[in-house]
Every structure is written in structure tokens, then in C-alpha cells.
């Protein structure tokens, strides 16, 4: 774990969570398991819960950002451990918080919280006061019950498993890892603050492993849909769960699409 302090990214959005460490040929490398706290004038919303390995850190970070305010909504982008595994701790700590998003399956996983599930569909939104949080289709995903999000106040899009990339490091020694990795010290950097922008090969590394199906599918259609969303919703930042926050949106779109094409062509 490295990044203990939240980074305030833009108007009312904090980058939380942490990194898990792997070993790459004798060098420690990290991979992000991030979550994002959106603080509106009236309501607050947490995108993803972080990994249970970071439970105490996430709880402290959320509390530090919120101060005396409550957490009103938790939006796990999909029901996987790194995205929803801290739901019990969050719901216990914030007894009025609702779980929002595509909430199918959560009653199977967390039956004790079934009365706190509030379904949202792609296209719906929640008014946080001075900003609107929109739920979007997840155009790049693994589980079908995945949603992305967009916060109008910060002009930030939250893309879950989409747009992950490695940065300048080899694969962890002996492991065909499926998460994007980076070097210590780079945990809280924006993509534009990294020593070099992510290359196509680096983006392809994470894509090919974390999103196996993209080896079989030409995802150009998905990027057309993403382009339409970006045309409708001004976006300055993209927040993946497993990668540094992206501040060069157009550049990363081109890199990510090229990476997907590389992965598709390599099967």
C-alpha cells in the first residue's frame, strides 16, 4: 500500500483506494485498486468501494474527505471484489447510505443489505446538488451488470475496468498478471504527469489480460459509442479502477483503441 492520502482531483472529486504490490524481476511494482468520492453540495457518492485489502485505508480516506457529512450513495460499478468488496464496511459505517447502480446479484452476495439497494439504469442520474451524477453504459466491461458513471461537476468519467494500462515496467516475475502495473512513486500521478504517456503496447498489456474476450472481438464499435458519450458529456478526466487517472482524454482514447486492435489481432 502506498497512497494513503486522498488526492483531490477536481472540483469535489477525491481519488481514493490504494495499490497492491507485486514483484517484477526483483522490482516492486504496483497496481491500482481505486475508488472515487464525489462530494456534491447536497449529497455524496462513492464510485467503487476499493479492495478489502485496503478496507481500513478506504474507510479513513472517506471519513477524511467527508468530515462530518454522511456518505449518501455507494456505486459499485460491478459486483467483483475490488469494486464492491468493501460494501459491508461502508454500509455499516454509513447506515443511511444506499447502494446504487445495476444492483442485480447483490441480494445473493449481501442479503443483509437487500433493503438498501436502489437500482439505477444506464441513462438515469442522481442529483447531488450542484452536480449531476449520470449512470452510463459500460462499453468496455467484463461482467454484464457493469455501469460507468459521469460527474458533471468535475467533468469526470468513471470507467471501472476500462482504460487500464501499465507503465514502463515488465510483468511481475513468473506471473501472467491481469492487472496494469506501475512503479512506486507513480501511484497518484495523472497520466500526463507520468514520465512518458502510456504507449499502445502498455495499454495492450493490461487489456489483453484483464479483458480476455477482447482477443476475440473487434471493439471499434464500442469506441464509437464512447465518442458519442464524450460529445454529449464534456469530460476532462477519466478515472479507471485499475490505472492512473487520465487527463489526456483524446490521446488515451486513441491509445486504448489501438491497444484493443493490437490485442484483437494477436489471438
Amino acid at each position, binding site marked *: 500500500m502506498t497512497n494513503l492520502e486522498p488526492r483531490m482531483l477536481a472540483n469535489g472529486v477525491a481519488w481514493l483506494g490504494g495499490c*497492491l504490490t507485486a514483484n517484477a524481476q526483483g522490482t516492486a511494482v504496483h*497496481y491500482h*485498486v481505486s475508488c472515487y468520492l464525489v462530494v456534491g453540495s447536497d449529497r455524496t457518492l462513492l464510485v467503487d468501494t476499493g*479492495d*478489502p*485489502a485496503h478496507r481500513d485505508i478506504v474507510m479513513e480516506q472517506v471519513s477524511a474527505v467527508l468530515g462530518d457529512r454522511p456518505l449518501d450513495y455507494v456505486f459499485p460499478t460491478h*459486483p*467483483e*471484489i*475490488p469494486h*464492491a*468488496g468493501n460494501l459491508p464496511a461502508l454500509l455499516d459505517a454509513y447506515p443511511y447510505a444506499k447502494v446504487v447502480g*445495476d444492483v*442485480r*446479484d447483490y*441480494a*445473493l*452476495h*449481501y*442479503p443483509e443489505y437487500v433493503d438498501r439497494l436502489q437500482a439505477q439504469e444506464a441513462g438515469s442520474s442522481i442529483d447531488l446538488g450542484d452536480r449531476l451524477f449520470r449512470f452510463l453504459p459500460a462499453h468496455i466491461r*467484463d*461482467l*454484464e*451488470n457493469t455501469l460507468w458513471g459521469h460527474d458533471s461537476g468535475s467533468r469526470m468519467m468513471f470507467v471501472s475496468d476500462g482504460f487500464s494500462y501499465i507503465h514502463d515496467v515488465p510483468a511481475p516475475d513468473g*506471473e*501472467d498478471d*491481469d*492487472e496494469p502495473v506501475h512503479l512506486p512513486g507513480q501511484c497518484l500521478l495523472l497520466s500526463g504527469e507520468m514520465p512518458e504517456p502510456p504507449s499502445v503496447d502498455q495499454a495492450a498489456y493490461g487489456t489483453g489480460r484483464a479483458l*480476455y*474476450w477482447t482477443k*476475440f*472481438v*473487434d471493439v471499434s*464499435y464500442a469506441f464509437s459509442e464512447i465518442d458519442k458519450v464524450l460529445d454529449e458529456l464534456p469530460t476532462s478526466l477519466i478515472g479507471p479502477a485499475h490505472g492512473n487517472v487520465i487527463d489526456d482524454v483524446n490521446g488515451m482514447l486513441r491509445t486504448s483503441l489501438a491497444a484493443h486492435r493490437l490485442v484483437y489481432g494477436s489471438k
Partner: protein
Amino acid sequence: MSTQVSEITGGATHLGGRVWRLGGTIHLNDQVSWCPEGADRDQEVSCYLIKGPSGSVLVDSGIRQHEALIVKQLGELLEPGEPVAIVLTRTEMECCLNIPALEEKFSVESVWYTGGITVPRARAATHRIQVAPGTSQIEEIMPGIMLEFISPLFRLLPTFWIHDAQSRVLLTSDAFVHVHEGGGDPVEGLTKFKWLELAQTADIAKEIFDTVASREIEAIGPGYGAPIIGGNNCLVEARRLSASVLSVGIV
């Protein structure tokens, strides 16, 4: 369709050889992500215990909604203090969320898994197994329990199918999930795999059938849906699933 459906009771059911089915049923409706469109019925959700001479292997840990039931079923099958290893077919929530509760009640020594970042567990040692899609690898998980870890092409997340050759049982995680008491169209088991509709699926379809046909399989135990009992029925369902995967893909 002649495929048999195993009886579901409050206790574990014998699947074949040394393999037992644990778990219960859920109501399969539009609140379940893998629900076929329009379905509204009960469905088995399962994990499986492979009993060995000096310890047992639990393949997946069941859904949390069934936590108490699975603890009860395991308590009836395990000797006091019997070592248990848990093998995860996937690191998805329906496979691993009961691990902490099982650690509290039983002697869980290790957790074996592929892919994913972390699995929830308190004390058990973790072993990550890497098997390239389309290949398999044999591991001795407990003394006397040699299991084949098959990495199928037909998958969403990193996935194992677990083959216990001694019992002639194949545990298929989120595949072969379509069978139920009223029948079962294999296409209904593809709800989770919408990406197939955008892919060339001939190789994937062929591998599904070949995996079953090239081994002596007498029972298939899916993570959800009814187990398939009988060698001929397993072949029939493998052929049907393979054909369905081929039919939904692009040419």
C-alpha cells in the same frame, strides 16, 4: 430432453464418486445477472466437495445467501479437524465470499485460484495457478486428490473447470448452467457471455465438446443450474452447448 436432474434437498447430494454437491436454490429472475430473458423459476447454485483419504477439497464456496446452509452441509460431511483446501473456479463473488465464514468453522488450509487481485480470506495460504486458456494442468491439492485444472476458451473472467478423473466428474463453473427440471436450452446459459455474439466462436465451440468427449465424464457439476448425471447425458449436453456457442457467433 432426457437429462436427469438431481434431487435438491437441504442436505448435500452425491454427484458421483467422491464428489458431493453443496448449496441450495435461488429464485432466478431479472434480479440475477445471468438470468435468461423472461425466466422466473428456482435454480440450483452449487459448490462441490471432493472427499479425500486425509482431507477434502471444496470447489468454490457457494453464495453468501447460502452461507449457513453450506456450513451445515460441510459439517455433516467433514470429520472434526479434517483439513480442507478451497479451489476457486473464478474469483467472482458467488465463488469466494463464504471463505471467511468457512475458515471460522473448519480447518481451511489453503485457497487455490487464478486471476483476480485478491480473495477474501483470513489465514489460509493462497496459491495462484496460471494455466493458459485452451490448456490444462494437474495439481495434487490434497494427499490423494489429484485434480486437473482446465482453462477453457469459453469464459469471461479467468476460469477453471475442475476435473476429478477418479470420480469421472467435471465441475464447470459458469458453463453448462442451462439444465433445469423443465428442460434447458443451452442458449439460456450464454446470458453472461454476450461477447460471443461479436466473436468467431468455432474454436471455442469445438473445445467445449472436445473437453468432455476426450475424458471419461460421468457427471457435470456447474456452479449454477442442475448437475448433469450420466456419461451419455454429459456428451449430449456438451454437444448442445457447443452447437449453441457456434450458432450465436459471427461467421
